[in-house]
Structure formats: C-alpha cells, structure tokens
C-alpha cells in the first residue's frame, strides 16, 4: 500500500475547501443524528433529492447528511450553505416549498425558520440564533458541516493532520507534554488530567498496551458522546491513534453502548475508511507505527462506564469493578497497561496536537481549560447539544443559550452530572463551568448532562429517581452499594408515599456517609450525591414530605390533594374532560370542583389546566 503523506492530506484539505466555496453551488446540510432520524429527516432528505431533481438542480445543490447538528428538539433541521439559513421542524410537505422558493427563487422560507422563544420573532440567519451564536464549537467543530461517513470531508477540515504531525515530527514524550500543557481533563466526569493519565501508562513497559475509548455513555440525560460519534467519528479515531502513539499501544477498543446503533455504524465506516487510507493498521503513514481499533458493543450495564468494569466487560465477563490498585495504567485490560479516555476528550486531541497545548489552554478558568460540551434538556426551551468555554455560567447556559424555561414557569434546579451529580438550585445559577466550582455547590461536572427542572419538579422524587437508577444499576458486588443504596431508596420511597419518619433524614445521611466512604467503585462512592445535594439545597421539601405529609411540587401522588382555586378558574371545563375517574364536577359557566374522595391524584387536570387554577 502506498502510504498517505502530509502533502496528500493538505491537497485533500484544499480540495474540500474549494468544493465548499465553489460559486453558485449550494450545500444543504441536513441533520442525520438520532434525534432527527427519529423525527423523519431521512424522508425529508429523500424528498429533497426528488424535488431537486424535478427542478433540474442536481448540479447546483448538494444535499449532505451530517451528524447531529445539536439543536435536537427542532428536528428535522437543515442549514443552507452559503446562505447561512437555518430551517427547523421540516416535514416532507415543506420540501417542495423550500426548493421552489429558496433554491429556485432565492426566497428563504420564513415560516420554517427558528422562532425566538422570548421575542417570538423568526431569526433568519443561522449565526444569529443565540443557541448557536454563544457556543464555542471546538470539540464539535465538525458537527453539522461534514458528512460523517466521508473521510474526505473530515480531512478537508484538517482531519488527521494532528496525527500526521505527531507521527512525523514528534516524540511520544512530546505528545504527552502537549497534552499536559493543554490542561485538558477527563471529560467523562472525574476530571483527571489526561496528560498525566497517559504519562503513567507510557512509563509502564509492556509488549502490549491498550487505548480504550469509553463510549458507554450511561448517564441519563447525556448524549454528547453519541452525537460526537455520529457527527465526527474520525476525530475520535484520530485521538485514539495519537494516544496510542504517546503510550506505544498497539490495540484500541471503542466500548460503545449497543443502544447507539447509528453511532456504531458510523464509527465502523470510519474505521474501515481510515484503514483503507493507511491511517489505521500496520505501518501508519509509513512510519512503522501500527495501531488498530475495534468496536466493542456493550450489553446494557451502567456500571460498565466505570473503567475497571468496562475492561472486565471487554474481556467478556460480568462488568463488576475490581479494586484499584493495580491501576489500569499498570494492569488494565487483560492485565496490560491501558488508558481509557472518554469520547469527548479524545475528540479534542487532534486539534490540540495541531494547534498546540497552549492554544487549548488559552480558554477556560485557572484549573479547567478549554471547552465543555453539555447536553441540555428537560424544562428548557432550546434542547440540544451546547459547547461553551470553561468559565461560562450555568445561568448563561440555561437562559442565553437555552432560551429559558418554557411556559413562563420558574427554574427550580439544574441537575448536573447524572446519578453521580447533584441538583443546583436557582440561587446558585451563577456558578461557572469549572470542575472545582461546580463541586463546591454539591454537584459534579460529570459527563455533561444538564437537566433543567422547573417548579413542578419534586426534588425528593428526583432524589428517589436517581437512587432507583443506582439501585437498578448497582453490580451487587460490594455491600455498601448493594445494600446501602437499597435502603436509601426504600426510605425515599417511604417518604414519597407519605410514610416518612422523623429519623429518616438522619438515617439517609448516615447511610450516605458510609456508602461514600467505603463503596468499592465510583458508582457507589458517588451514589449519594443526588440525595445529599437535595438535602443540602431543598431540605425544606424533605421536611414537608415527612412532617407535613405534603409534596410542595405536587408530584408525589400520595401527598397531594388537588383543589380548584376559584378565583383563577375560567370555567373552561378542560379539567373535567381529562379526568379519567370523573372526579371533577363541572357545569358550563361554573367553577370546577374536585371530589377529593374520588380523585386518584393522576394529575391530569393539573396538567391540563391552562390557567394554573388547580393546586
């Protein structure tokens, strides 16, 4: 095989740039992420092709299916280049109009453009949409722009140039030095400095070493990794190969959840392409360095996100964590030195090598450098993937990028870090994105799930939800996690059902202390974080459940009694219409009345009332 050279890479880059700037050619970047697939983007894409053909525009318009664009709630969506127009929530029926109006008559279709949730005005230009404008896409630099199934596109965006530089110009130790200089820390959540991690594994001599990519994105509410794999799989491969060079590894695995079929498909395509260009496999770029990557599909166990459990799983065993030491850098997969990095971390490596560690560390706070990708979801207007510089405040993420809370409700808390994280209340919203700062308010950076919760959310129920999650996902090996979290859950269930006892709070705290101090792995050690953060910031809600037998947010059915606030009731009757048990008495032009005896606390009326007249 002839090896690809830096010159060839540069030529491919130029070719791509020329392609994008060809005059009179339009590119339609239609999102092909999981979210948009689910809402029918493939059908829209087919319709576009058809319609374009009908108008004989094949030479002038190129339809590119990209990976996840990030603005997931608005799919199917599309960006028209170079017009800089963003279309949202397209249907097959809209296609004819888009083609004839926009592509033929140069009149963008306004009704499909983004509508600002506050001002209710359409925003014609993609770059003016606050959701995008305020982001700093470094990790996600290729999202929505390239075809993830094309290695040419990736190379066109400086892809594999970092690798090329590393292989031809740098010593392994220099790679690690650059990583250390960049200050990048593990994006999986714990925030361990990546350069350090690599240096440990580099120090251990072994004929075989492994580079693993953790794509077992298990935190509920997190989908950054899936999006990166779907949108820019080569970036991960390039990062892994550079890591392999740094520690002198020969084999790599991407441990991916089997729930992510699209990501798996695209990564496999990327691996095949990289191999065919000699960017993976034997003698990469003719340098004598060999490294190859395979995908290992998980089988559904959250605990396999824990590094030792993940390695056991690749070995074909039960994903049960084992004690450290020995650390994976010394004895990891198959007892060989191993590094494990998260998808997001690895996706940054190519650019760090190309631009230098200093470049990367120019952004961020004292101890947290670069950018961080978050998956913003829950009770927020703009749901999707956001990447911001470290140091951005949560408030800015929720309100400026996220567009605030829908239905004029109030923000109650933001949940960060999944089952290992915590809930940050409204009055701490000015905390900035920084590993240490976030820890100070009782959460963790985590992998990046940001779930916004409005005032309808019961925080005790949220604590219960996370414990239920942990309890189901505990591997069962160590006593504190297996038995302790079960007891915590039992107590919280009891509280939510109205049987809380005065001593329950102390008991939960004692359990938390013991589990945190003595559990075997990270899953258990952090399992109490959600409940502790709720106790810290929303203790009154706990007390209301236990002592007053009330659920202030009206989420816990056993503790809720619904009644109509007469002065707010507009006598519309919607509540009576939705009640499944006929417990709402209403007559035309009369204020509704809820028969508490018959009410089953299903909340249908509460949700249905347009006037917040039920409480």
């Amino acid at each position, binding site marked *: 095989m002839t090896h690809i050279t830096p010159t060839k890479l540069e030529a491919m880059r130029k070719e791509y740039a020329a392609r994008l700037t060809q005059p009179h050619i339009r590119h339609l970047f239609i999102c092909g992420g999981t979210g948009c697939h689910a809402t029918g983007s493939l059908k829209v894409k087919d319709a576009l092709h058809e319609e374009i053909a009908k108008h004989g525009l094949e030479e002038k318009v190129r339809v590119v299916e990209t990976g996840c664009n990030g603005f997931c709630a608005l799919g199917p969506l599309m960006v028209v280049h170079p017009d800089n127009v963003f279309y949202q929530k397209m249907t097959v029926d809209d296609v004819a109009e888009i083609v004839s109006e926009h592509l033929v008559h140069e009149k963008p279709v306004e009704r499909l453009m983004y509508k600002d949730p506050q001002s209710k005005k359409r925003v014609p230009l993609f770059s003016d949409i606050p959701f995008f404008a305020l982001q700093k896409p470094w990790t996600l630099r290729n999202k929505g722009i390239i075809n993830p199934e094309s290695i040419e596109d990736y190379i066109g965006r400086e892809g594999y140039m970092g690798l090329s530089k590393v292989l031809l110009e740098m010593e392994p130790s220099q790679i690690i030095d650059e990583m250390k200089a960049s200050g990048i820390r593990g994006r999986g959540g714990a925030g361990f400095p990546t350069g350090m991690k690599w240096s440990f594994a580099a120090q251990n001599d072994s004929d075989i070493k492994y580079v693993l990519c953790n794509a077992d994105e298990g935190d509920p509410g997190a989908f950054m990794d899936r999006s990166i794999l779907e949108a820019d799989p080569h970036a991960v491969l390039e990062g892994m190969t550079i890591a392999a060079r740094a520690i002198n590894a020969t084999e790599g695995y991407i441990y991916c959840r089997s729930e992510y079929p699209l990501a798996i498909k695209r990564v496999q395509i990327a691996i095949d392409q990289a191999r065919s260009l000699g960017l993976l496999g034997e003698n990469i770029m003719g340098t004598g360095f060999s490294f190859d990557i395979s995908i290992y599909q998980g089988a559904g*166990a959250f605990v396999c996100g824990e590094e030792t459990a993940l390695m056991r799983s690749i070995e074909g065993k*039960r994903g*049960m964590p*084992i*004690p*450290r*030491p020995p650390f994976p850098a010394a004895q990891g997969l198959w007892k060989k030195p191993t590094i494990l990095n998260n998808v997001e971390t690895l996706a940054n490596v190519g650019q760090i090598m190309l631009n230098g560690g200093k470049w990367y560390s120019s952004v961020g706070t004292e101890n947290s450098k670069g950018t961080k990708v978050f998956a913003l979801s829950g009770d927020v207007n703009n749901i999707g993937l956001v990447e911001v510089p470290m140091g951005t405040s949560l408030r800015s993420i929720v309100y400026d990028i996220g567009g605030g809370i829908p239905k004029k409700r109030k923000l109650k808390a933001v949940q960060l870090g999944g089952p290992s994280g915590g809930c940050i209340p409204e009055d701490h919203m000015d905390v900035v994105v920084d590993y240490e700062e976030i820890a100070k308010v009782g959460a963790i950076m985590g992998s990046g799930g940001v779930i916004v919760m409005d005032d309808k959310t019961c925080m005790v129920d949220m604590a219960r939800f996370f414990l239920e999650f942990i*309890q*189901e*996902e*505990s*591997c*069962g*090996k*160590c*006593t*504190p996690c*297996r*038995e*302790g979290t*079960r*007891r915590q859950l*039992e107590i919280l269930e009891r509280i939510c059902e109205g049987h809380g006892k005065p001593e329950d709070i102390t*008991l939960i705290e*004692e*359990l938390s*202390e*013991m589990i*945190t*101090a*003595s*559990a*075997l792995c990270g899953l258990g*050690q952090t399992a109490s974080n959600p409940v502790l953060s709720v106790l810290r910031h929303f203790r009154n809600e706990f007390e209301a459940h236990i002592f007053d037998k009330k659920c202030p947010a009206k989420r816990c059915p056993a503790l809720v009694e619904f009644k109509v606030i007469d002065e707010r009731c507009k006598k519309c009757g919607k509540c009576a219409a939705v009640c499944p048990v006929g417990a709402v008495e209403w007559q035309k032009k009369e204020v509704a009345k809820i028969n508490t005896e018959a009410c089953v606390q299903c909340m249908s009326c509460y949700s249905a009332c347009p006037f917040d007249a039920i409480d």
Partner: protein
Amino acid sequence: MSTLELTINGKGYAFTQGETILDVACRNDIVIPTLCHLKNTTPTGACRMCVVEVKGARSLVASCTVPASAGMEVQTESPSVVKSRKMNLELLLSSGSHDCLLCPASGDCRLQDLAFKYNATGKRFERTKPKYSPDVSNPFLIRDFSKCILCGRCVQACKDVQVNNAIDYGYRGSDAKIIAKCDLPLGDSDCVFCGECLQVCPVGALTLKKARQKPRICETEAVRTTCAYCGVGCQMNLHVKDNVVQMVTGADAVPNHGSLCVKGRFGMQFINSPERLTTPLIRKDGELVPAEWDEALGLVAEKLGTYKAENGADSIGVLASARCTNEENYLFQKFARAVIGTNNVDHCARY
C-alpha cells in the same frame, strides 16, 4: 535500602513492597475484620468490612487491597471506621434471615462475631424478605440464600482455588445471587461437591445437610490427620464428638492447603457404619460364624505354623495393604519375613 515502614494505630511497622495494609496488620497480630478476604486468592474488595482510615485519603480504604506505603498512617478502629463497619453490619443483618438461634453456623460465623463485636443489629431497617428459596437438592450441603452475604468467597474457592468453575455470581444489584450453571440446584449443575465453598463460607449460607440437631463445629474436637483415600495425602481435621466423626474440614498445610475432595470431605461415614466388622469370624461347616478373638488368632497362628512346618514357609503368602500405615506395613512384611520366613509379601500397588 532503608527499610519501609508505616504506622498502624500510632505504632511503626516494617513492611516489604507489595504487602497490603491487611497483610502487615495480620503479620503483627492487629485484628482487622474481614468477610470476603480469602487467603491465596486475589482480593476482591467486596465486603468493605476491612476498611481503615488512612491519613490524607479522601475516603476510607479497604485494607485488603491497598498496598502499604512508606509513611502511611493507618487507624484500624477510628470512630469513622467503627461507624462504617457497624452500618455495614446493620445492612447485612437486616437483609435476609440471620437467625442465629437455629443456624448451624452459630458459633462459627464471622457475621455473628462481628455483630457482637461492633454491637450491631439489623433493627434500624425493615428486614427484607429472602428473595430466593434454599437449595436442598443434593445430599451434601444446603445453600440458604437468605443467609448469604454475597462475599463471594465460595466463588473464589470454586474458581480460583479448586478451578471447578461450577458457581459464579448471577444477576446483579440487589438481585445478585450465587448461581450454579443456569441458576440450577447444585445437584443439577457442574458441581463436584468438593465442599471447598462450604469450608470458606463465613456465615450459615452453606451448611452441611441435616446439620441441625447435630453438634455444631464449635462443640467438636478437631483431630488433624491424613486422608485415607488417594495418594495425595491431604491433611484434614476430623471433628469428633461422642466418639463420632461429625464432620471433616481441610487443614491448612501442605499438600492441600485446606482443600479436600468430595470423598475426603463427605466420605467418612464408613467410620461409623453399622456394617463395620466387630467380631472375628471363623468358617465352620461352610459358614462364617462369630468367634472370640483368642480363638480366631489361635486358629490363624496354628494353621500358619502348620503349613510352614509341613510345606515350607513359601507355601504361605501375605498380602499387605496400601490402605494401612507405614508402621503396619513394616510389621506385616517383617511378619512374613521374620516370623513366617518367606518373601511372599506383596500389596495392591498394581491395582
């Protein structure tokens, strides 16, 4: 090289590279309680009972897995350690049915000992109902899952010590259970009943079949001896009460280091078999009939003497026994050679 030293409870102890905190403590007779730790296997760190406080560490550390390091300051019974262990015990005690009154392991149960030591009960929590019913399918032992604390020692014993690979963890989280084959009764599994699991179980989850109404192990006297089955010569303890071998355990010495096979552990019933011969028999009129020792011995001596005298010593043969002791075999061959006067002595080495 300067000697490596750490302090435990304020006192300095030397250690060698690679020793865990628990190793150092054990060597110096400092008791750190464990439930899952099993000698000669890789520590699993499952039970978290052996946690200790190390100055500067973020949380408590499991002494069975954390290597000793120079200058480390360890507290083995600090208030936070004791609190953690007590809660750990409370959790275990409340899960399943740990009724010491009717448990065959009572008196030989680490959970019981530790509950006593740390004054722990399961009363602060609602007792969880046992999820799995006991397995009584085989003639040797009972698996009572309601007493199982999932320490995993049996799994290690089966996989790492005996390499029989008959059991493993099954399911996960609070559903976790030690399973055989496809969660089948042991009798239907690949188990060969070496009983290693029984021996290492620190609680009453694995007990001898029909153990109740028999002496508990703590009531018996252990006599160390050598197994009389195959040629490996396993060292074993015969647990005796009322002149009956009540049970057998492996002794921790060469060559078997505590292990036994199914015959050694469960095959000693013959000692107290009612079929044992208790009186000499002499063939009279074609029938074997009971006789006095004196008569029988006299008859043998007389007959052997007669044949020797009449047909020569070589008309007599002695078949000694690979089942008997060296001392006895020495006497048998000496009897043949020195008393009878023949080299016609052999034994069953060939079978």
